[in-house]
């Protein structure tokens, strides 16, 4: 019965709550839209990958290694009943259109018959790969055809062989946007691949097998687990289709985690807005609350009644925002198709609506608790005497409200990030930022109160007086708008500085082109071509890969047990690439020992952190195995390396000549002016077709593009925080509407025109917005500066005009918003308002 009564009372309280509902809805809807949009997007990406994983992988299981699959493994696969297998080779190599001589770095995929088992490639002319390809033909991605000016029937050189372009690939399921790959796709047959002769020393080929399992095999993941337990896998890794698209899955999780927190920020600002609205509302309700108390309602019941009302409004507001947000996953692929793998269709995520409503109401109720607690203090004797003193504040209640506030932010952050540490950090940061902004805003209110206004022009004096007015929601509006500005400006600053840095700055003396897989007998030809094309700072080093077998007299496995933590284990078990040379580059500094100082032994020089990881010291004996042949070395020097120089550097360098007899390739770097890069590449690919050319500039451009794209997403979400700030400002403005109606009437009676009144108001809001923007941008500059200085460790130059500009923009937006909210007041006739 009690509950029913409270419910009814709360319901009656909702009468005439339309204005309140509007702002509640606006404040919470923006935040919950962002929260649900982000989580829905991430969820739907994962759900879509899970649902379409077979098509994205093209089969049920994918086995791969950097060397041909071990015989035992192949035998085991052959013995599998009813499973189908398709051999695959993957390699990055250069493709050259023989007609034009133009070349491109491509991702070659050589496949056996039957590829793919699930899903389908879209080819032009239509057909399957099996039907279109023969050993002298390739199918190329349409963007490669466009880039090289190729048509079906034209000739393409890959390695030492030439192929006819038999088809264009219009769509490949699971393929990422070109931005996220090293080059366009080319399909060939396995025999075609062999004819290219790319399998030289040091070439980075992935040997793989795609499997289609019979239905009797059960879930692919379990099948894969049993296989890897039963059969020694060697270097090979096995993935079932359930683990398809690991990068995208990981990205979706990161998006959910970090963007989720940015989205939460706008919800929290919505909470600040709700708190302001509730405070103003309770303020107008004190008389009613007094009557309720006299009629016998306990303070707790009154609190529950108003909390119930808040809960109802919050549910409506966040449900609306969440519902709209849940459709975001359906829109994103239309506007940002490059963010998703090809062929992935996203579905509606109705469940994510629950998250939005849950977090929205949690934040709204928690943030309005401190304001609601004022209900406790309304004395019943107020019905007899208006100015009766409020009852003493309940300490426990105040503390509980504060605890609920912080707790709710933490819980929401935890739900969003699923990481305790991140949630705690986020809560701390938000509390600190809100605190600093609130202090700033309070300081400004003080300043405005203290400032002598007599001599100023009337409109300015009025604006300053409005800032100085106690309460009036100034604090909340400044804090919310300030935090919004802070988020957006910080993002903009970091992103623009970082991309400028990435695209402009090849480090001086750093190489702009790298050449992989050069064979020793191609060296003369390579040098000739580069000299002819005017490349500078050409550096060529030999490159061999070996495996560490013994350190300090212990086997590498034993050493891994001792030094088996993290990087150490990785460094000890992985194939090591190393070089040998007489002199070290200027970006290497000896920190211990002497280079090539021991005539008795073969010597190694190790990078000092690497040496620490594997547990090697000066004088440690080390055995490396090259194609099964062990060679013994002694560590005679340790180096420090400036990795950021973009030079060619290695953890391990051997003394000159030590490995000339070992199978090796050459690695080269050169500096070429940007406009000549393509020519150098084309000439070299024509002369040495097996060499892979890596262009540093284009990689940096891609990184910078990806960065700016992800930054855009974060900035869009950040813009929501500014929007919430503006809504709050408008809400504060319209909550004071009654006062304003009287003010306007008075001014009009005094002879001020409507335009004049509008100017007065505009200035008032502009001042508020300007101050908020300025505070936010100052905070942003400080944050960005700290980020550059301490995280990225490069000199920052946050432009001085950031804060004034942000202040100006915020002022303009605030003035527009404020005017819109006061439009009604501006239109009232003086006589009407004086009557009421």
């Amino acid at each position, binding site marked *: 019965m009690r509950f029913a009564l409270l419910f009814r009372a709360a319901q*009656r309280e909702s009468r005439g709550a339309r204005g309140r509902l509007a702002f509640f809805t606006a404040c919470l809807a923006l935040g919950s839209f962002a929260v649900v949009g982000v989580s829905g997007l991430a969820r739907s990406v994962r759900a879509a990958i899970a649902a379409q994983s077979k098509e994205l992988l093209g089969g049920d299981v994918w086995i791969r290694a950097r060397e041909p699959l071990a015989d035992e493994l192949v035998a085991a696969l052959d013995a599998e009943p009813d499973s189908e297998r398709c051999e695959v080779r993957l390699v990055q190599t250069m493709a050259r259109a023989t007609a034009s001589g133009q070349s491109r770095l491509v991702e070659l995929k050589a496949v056996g018959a039957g590829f793919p088992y699930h899903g389908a490639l879209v080819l032009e002319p239509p057909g399957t790969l099996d039907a279109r390809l023969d050993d002298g033909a390739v199918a190329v991605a349409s963007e490669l055809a466009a880039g090289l000016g190729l048509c079906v029937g034209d000739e393409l050189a890959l390695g030492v062989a030439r192929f006819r372009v038999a088809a264009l690939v219009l769509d490949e399921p699971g393929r990422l946007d070109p931005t996220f790959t090293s080059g366009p796709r080319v399909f060939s047959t396995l025999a075609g691949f062999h004819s290219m002769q790319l399998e030289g020393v040091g070439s980075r080929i992935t040997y793989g097998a795609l499997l289609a399992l019979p239905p009797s095999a059960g879930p692919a993941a379990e099948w894969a687990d049993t296989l890897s337990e039963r059969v020694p896998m060697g270097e090979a890794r096995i993935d079932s289709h359930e683990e398809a698209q690991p990068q995208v899955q990981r990205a979706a999780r990161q998006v959910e985690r970090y963007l989720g927190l940015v989205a939460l920020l706008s919800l929290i600002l919505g909470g600040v807005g709700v708190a302001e609205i509730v405070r103003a509302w309770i303020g107008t309700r004190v008389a009613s609350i007094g009557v309720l108390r006299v009629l016998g309602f306990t*303070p707790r019941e009154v609190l529950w009644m108003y909390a119930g009302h808040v809960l109802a409004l919050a549910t409506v507001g966040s449900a609306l925002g969440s519902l709209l947000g849940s459709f975001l996953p359906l829109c994103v692929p239309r506007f940002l198709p490059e963010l998703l793998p090809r062929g992935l269709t996203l579905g509606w995520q109705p469940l994510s609506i629950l998250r939005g409503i849950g977090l929205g109401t949690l934040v709204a109720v928690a943030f309005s608790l401190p304001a609601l607690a004022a209900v406790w203090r309304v004395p019943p004797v107020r019905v*007899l005497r208006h100015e009766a003193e409020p009852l003493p504040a309940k300490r426990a209640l105040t503390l509980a409200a504060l605890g609920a506030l912080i707790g709710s932010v933490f819980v929401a952050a935890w739900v969003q990030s699923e990481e305790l540490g991140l949630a705690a950090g986020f809560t701390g940061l938000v509390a600190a930022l809100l605190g600093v902004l609130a202090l700033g805003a309070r300081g400004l209110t003080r300043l405005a109160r203290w400032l002598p206004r007599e001599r100023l022009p009337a409109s300015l004096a009025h604006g300053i007086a409005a800032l100085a007015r106690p309460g009036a929601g100034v604090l909340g509006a400044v804090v919310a708008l300030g935090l919004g500005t802070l988020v957006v400006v910080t993002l903009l600053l970091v992103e623009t500085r970082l991309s400028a840095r990435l695209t402009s700055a090849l480090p001086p003396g750093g190489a702009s082109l790298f050449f992989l897989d050069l064979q020793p007998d191609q060296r003369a030809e390579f040098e000739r071509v580069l000299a002819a094309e005017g490349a500078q700072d050409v550096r060529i080093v030999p490159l061999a890969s070996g495996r560490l077998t013994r350190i300090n007299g212990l086997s590498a496995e034993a050493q891994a047990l001792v030094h088996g933590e993290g990087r150490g284990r990785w460094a000890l078990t992985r194939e090591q690439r190393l070089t040998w040379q007489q002199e070290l580059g200027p970006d290497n500094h000896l920190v211990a020992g002497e280079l090539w100082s021991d005539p008795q032994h073969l010597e190694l020089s190790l990078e000092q952190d690497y040496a620490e990881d594997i547990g090697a010291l000066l004088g440690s004996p080390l055995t490396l195995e090259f194609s099964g042949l062990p060679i013994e070395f002694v560590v005679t020097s340790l180096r420090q390396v400036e990795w950021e120089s973009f030079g060619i550097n290695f953890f391990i360098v051997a003394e000159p000549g030590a490995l000339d007899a070992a199978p090796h390739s050459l690695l080269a770097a050169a500096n070429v002016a940007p406009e000549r890069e393509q020519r150098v590449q084309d000439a070299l690919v024509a002369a040495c077709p097996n060499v892979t050319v890596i262009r540093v500039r284009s990689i940096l451009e891609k990184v910078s593009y990806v960065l700016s794209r992800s930054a855009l997403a974060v900035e869009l979400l950040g813009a929501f925080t500014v929007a919430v700030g503006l809504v709050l400002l408008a809400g504060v403005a319209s909550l004071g509407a009654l006062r304003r109606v009287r003010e306007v009437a008075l001014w009009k009676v005094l002879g001020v025109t409507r335009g004049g009144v509008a100017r007065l108001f505009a200035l008032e809001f502009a001042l508020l917005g300007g101050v908020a923007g300025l505070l936010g941008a100052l905070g942003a500059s400080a944050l960005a500066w700290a980020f550059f200085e301490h995280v990225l460790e490069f000199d920052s130059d946050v432009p001085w005009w950031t804060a004034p500009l942000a202040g100006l923009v915020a002022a303009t937006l605030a003035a527009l918003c404020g005017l819109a909210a006061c439009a009604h007041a501006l239109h009232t006739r003086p006589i009407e308002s004086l009557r009421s």
Partner: protein
Amino acid sequence: MPALECRGLKKELPSGAHTLAILAGIDLAIEAGEFVAILGPSGSGKTTLLGLLAGLDRPSAGEVWLEGRRIDALSEDALARLRRGRVGFVFQSFQLLGNLTALENVLLPLELVGVAGARARSVELLGEVGLGDRLDHYPAQLSGGEQQRVALARAFASEPSVLFADEPTGNLDAETGARVLLLLDALRARRQVTLVLVTHDPEVAARADRRVHLRAGKIERIEFGRETARA
């Protein structure tokens, strides 16, 4: 046992360095069913005394007993529970809830106690005060006299044993005020409700069984017997 009693009731407020005595020791016992009027010039402490007797405010010293129970030290919750159903109020400024209809205003205290047939009783009461056809009107749609009649209906709805009224006719013109007062007296008499009424209008006070005159926070004198002749 008196329905309502106070002993040595004091209310003091800090005013600068020293304290200001608003009520300086009031002793009063009111019998069940009695109608007591409290009179006195403005600022003499009438409202303060009423608030203390009704348990809306806390005394600085002294005791208040309501139907044999000491109430001056009860918690806010206990006081609130005590008020439901036992104590009714009528105020000078009506104090209706603006977002509730006349009927809902009367219903509210009944819902709080949780009695059966609340609605029927409310409708009947509103009929009794002559507003049977205004059930669904909001306070803003009613005249002052009508609002005060709704307030009367609300005060009697939960069948209180004690009713407190602070200048119930203060905001009404003489004629309307007289009508409201007649109604109040009739309702009270029929239900045997104890009534404590604050006024500075001698004509209003004339209907009371007893008139307590306050001056500067003290009882100046007490008069007994209805002055029916002057009414």
